[in-house]
Structure formats: structure tokens, C-alpha cells
């Protein structure tokens, strides 16, 4: 006799444990690095052989990749910094990779990796990649590939308690359900009830990570935006702050300009920076997520 029972899908199929790093690609790494420093990040290490820098504050790592093959499908990074990849912390990177391919993800081109370590990854939205990193506790991926900058503090503290809150993804019309399927199937993201938003940009669809440490926000073009050039891709990171007003004050002192009129002016819920270097914005969101 066989017993058939309905076995539920695991709620966290790749044992995700947050964001390990966010990668930007740009041909102007110094200008972008200066912007990151204004945002509270410090340059902490340089890649041994590639034009790649590591910036850090608190638990947040940002990779700035200006190597000529930084972007899959494109010849080289352009001046405008692009959000090129999200790296998820997982228990077992190769298991996460196999699971993703079994579900129908596309393996990333190996040349595109910012690292020389074999960090597995898949294609995400647009030209972006999703990496899986399992070395993030005692031994980090940066120990192998990066050389610390002389005199730089290896673990600079976060400004005003900033931490990863989420990533905003632009999608084409009627594509919300597709991308919800993607993140739900591959990684176990769950959709938040309609109307539940954080911050000052309450639109689109919010997905919560299975580890409950960050969110993805899917945004279709707004009505009447037919003339706007709207491609699919990662567009912005959201930084959580326990006290948004204090974080805004601290960042303003460092020279960051926030949009201060209309619907997105800074409140205790959130704030949005002006557009830097052609396309880059940062969003602050009130958050007590543990960094």
C-alpha cells in the first residue's frame, strides 16, 4: 500500500537568511563611491585582480563593479550606475543554485561574476543577477577575493542604524503575477496583503522574504506613463532606519539631498533622495528589522 499525502512546499526552500551584498555596475566607480560615502558607506577593500570595490556600513555590503564584463548581455558598464545584482545569504549555495535551476531559472554567465570564488548565481530581472552566498558567518567571501584598504576600518558602524530594508524592481505592465510566481516559487517569498505598505512610496506589490529580513517591491508603470521609457530591472534599494527623521538629518549633514515636496517629502515613515548620477536614488523606510 502506498500512502499519498500532500506534502507542503518548504516555506524557505533555499534557507535564505537575508541580503549579503548589493552590486552596482558603473564605469565611474569613483563618483559612485563618493556618493556611497555620503550615504554612510566606507570603502573597506579592493578586489585582488578586478576593478571591483567593497563598501560597507553596519551589516550592509555594497559591491561596485566597473570591470568591463560586469554586466551580462552588455559590453561594459555605462556611466550611469546600475543595480546589477542581489546576493542572498543561504545555508548552502550549491543547493540553492540547483533548486533554482530545477525550478526553471537560467544559470548566469560565469564571466559576469564580480568574484573569483565560485559564487553561483542565476538571471534575475532585466540584466540583473541573483547570487547565492553561504560563507557569511566566520569566513566571508571577501576574505578570499579582496584586499583590505590600508587604514580602513574593516567594520564601519551603520549611520543612524541603517540596514537593508528592500529592493525595488520595475516590471512591465501586467507582469506582477509573473514576478510574484518567480520569487514565490524559487525562494518562498510571500505577497503582503494589498494596501500594506511602508515608507513614502505606497505603490506596486510588496513581497516579504522567507527569512523576514527584507522586502521586494514590484512596480508596474503608472497609468498614463506610456511615453516614459520603462524597462524591467532593479531600480533602487530601500534602507531601513529605526528613526527616519534622525537618519535624514544625519545624511543631510553629509550632503545628501532629499525630495522635500509633493507626496514623497520626508516623514517619520520614510524619505527619498534626489536622483544622483542619472539614475540612482536611495529610499529610507522606518524599520525595526534586526540588521
Amino acid at each position, binding site marked *: 500500500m502506498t500512502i499519498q499525502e500532500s506534502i507542503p512546499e518548504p516555506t524557505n526552500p533555499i534557507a535564505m537568511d537575508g541580503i549579503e551584498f548589493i552590486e552596482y555596475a558603473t564605469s565611474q566607480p569613483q563618483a559612485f563611491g563618493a556618493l556611497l560615502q555620503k550615504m554612510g558607506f566606507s570603502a573597506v577593500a579592493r578586489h585582488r585582480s578586478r576593478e571591483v570595490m567593497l563598501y560597507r556600513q553596519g551589516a550592509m555590503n555594497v559591491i561596485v563593479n566597473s570591470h568591463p564584463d560586469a554586466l551580462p548581455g552588455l559590453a561594459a558598464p555605462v556611466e550611469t550606475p546600475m543595480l546589477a545584482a542581489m546576493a542572498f545569504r543561504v545555508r548552502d549555495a550549491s543547493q540553492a543554485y540547483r533548486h533554482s535551476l530545477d525550478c526553471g531559472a*537560467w544559470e548566469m554567465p560565469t564571466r559576469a561574476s564580480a568574484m573569483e570564488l565560485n559564487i553561483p548565481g542565476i538571471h534575475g530581472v532585466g540584466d540583473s543577477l541573483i547570487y547565492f552566498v553561504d560563507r557569511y558567518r566566520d569566513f566571508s567571501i571577501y576574505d578570499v577575493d579582496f584586499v583590505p584598504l590600508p587604514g580602513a576600518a574593516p567594520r564601519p558602524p551603520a549611520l543612524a542604524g541603517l540596514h537593508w530594508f528592500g529592493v525595488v524592481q520595475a516590471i512591465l505592465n501586467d507582469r506582477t503575477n509573473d514576478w510574484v510566481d518567480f520569487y514565490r516559487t524559487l525562494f518562498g517569498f510571500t505577497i503582503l496583503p494589498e494596501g500594506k505598505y511602508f515608507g513614502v512610496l505606497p505603490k506596486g506589490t510588496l513581497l516579504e522574504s522567507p527569512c523576514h529580513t527584507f522586502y521586494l517591491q514590484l512596480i508596474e508603470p503608472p497609468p498614463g506613463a506610456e511615453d516614459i521609457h520603462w524597462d524591467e530591472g532593479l531600480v533602487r534599494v530601500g534602507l531601513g532606519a529605526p528613526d527616519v527623521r534622525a537618519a535624514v538629518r544625519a545624511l543631510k549633514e553629509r550632503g545628501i539631498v532629499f525630495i522635500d515636496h509633493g507626496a514623497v517629502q520626508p516623514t517619520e515613515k520614510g524619505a527619498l533622495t534626489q536622483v544622483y548620477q542619472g539614475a540612482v536614488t536611495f529610499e529610507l523606510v522606518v524599520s525595526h528589522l534586526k540588521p
Partner: protein
Amino acid sequence: MDTATLAGPLEARLSAVRAAGFSHVVLNASEIASHPGGEQAAAAAVRASGLHVCGVQVLRDFEGLSGHLHDYKVDVAKAMLRMCRAVGSELLVAWSSTSNHASGDAAALVRDLRKLATLALPLGIRIGYEALSWGRHVDAYPKAAQLVDEADRANLGLVLDSFHVLAARTALDELDYVDSRKIFLVQLSDFLWHEARSAEERGEAGRHARVFPGEGVHSAELADFIRRLDEMGYRGDYSFEVFNDDYLQLPPATVAGRALKSAKWAIDHVSRRSLPLRRPDARRAT
């Protein structure tokens, strides 16, 4: 129109379709692959034609395989999805498997259809799953609809082909259980035989002896089919899926002209969409 109905180089087929007055076209992967200038030249020809590509076919025998056969088909599917992207098609048609190596286990079929949908997803392509009436395990649209329903993926839906429905005499009442939003494309054709009882006969008629709607012997059933789709709320594309050996020996313009005549037949006999005030009459007529 479907370019597989026409003879000649891709450019000549597209030109005949356009000249006959059609605005949409279904392309076949083989004609993109066999273009003397390669895939890029084929894509350029399609763009230059100004025709909207409402689908590319066909991915065969994808679901139900395992091991190296499955891996091989995943590679084929990926290459076809790239072709879809190159020619601007948002739909890849996948025929139900005819392979002797394919499992009929519903869970395996659902798993593979989900995987195919996920492969297509980042490229912005939808998968239209079509039941061939000579399919090994899935040989009628209700079975395909059940799998699509169970797979539950936004970019996975059905392609309905009137030939398979008519030839296998699948009950149209089953359409009542299909969500019209999950029908991604409807393909229309008739054939000249009154009956095609066996899978072999259906295969023979389906591959070589289809004709345009209005030219065959199942006009009443075909009209009923389209009318039901209209009434259930289907508002997607229709395409003529006519595989006919004779038409491949005729000038494309001649065959495209027959297609245009068929489109007029369809409008005269079944479409009420442009005449919403006559909708109550249409209901009585059924």
C-alpha cells in the same frame, strides 16, 4: 495567419500575409532557424514586415521526460525562448508530448510545465500549452486545461486548436470549465474528411490536409466553437493553423487570399464582437 501554411522564403511569406491585409502572424521556429541569413536576419525581416507576432511554434515533447532527455529538452526550450525574444513574440506554443519516453504522471507533467513557465518568465514570454489529438498522454484540451490549472502559473495558459477539437470530437461543453483568461491563443482550421477516428488518421489529416475555416466539412461545428469562445469572454488572438501540402505548392499570395476569404467567412458566420447589439440574437442562434 500562420506562416507554416505558405511556401517560399520567410520574407515572401510575411509579405503575402501583409498584402492580404492581416496584421498578426504566427511564426515557426524552423523558418527562423533555416533563414539563410540566420536568426538575426529572420528577426530583422519580421520587424521590417510590421506584423505583430502573436506566437512562435513549436516546442515538442517537453513534458514528462527525465534524466538526460529532460535536460536536452530544457536546452531546446531555452533556445526557442531566445528565438521568441529575437522576433518579438510573447508566446511560445508547446505541443503536448507524443514521446514514448514521456511519463503520464500528472505530478511530473505539472512540474515540467511549471519549469517551462519559469524559464520563459524573465524573458517576458508566455507558454501556450496545446493538446495534440494524437498526444501520448494529453490528447484533448480538457486534460491540458486541468494541468495548466494545477500548475497555476500566470504565464502558462492554453492554446486551443479547432482541428484537434473537431477531429477528436472533444465535447465543447468542457469549455465551460476553462477560464477564458487562461486561453492564450486560438488556432482555427477545418479539414476535408468527415471523420478521423484513429490517432494515425488525425495525425495524417492534421499534418497534411487541413483547410481554412469555411473550406472544409465541419463549418457548423467550427462556427459553434468560435461562438462559444466569444460568449465565454475570450478576447485574444485567432490564427489560422492550416497545414496543407497542396497550399505549399501554390504561390503564397494565392493561399493568403484564401485565408482572407476565410477570415471574412468567420466574421460573417460567427463574430458578434463588432456588433454587440446583436449579441442576444447570437445567443438564441446557438
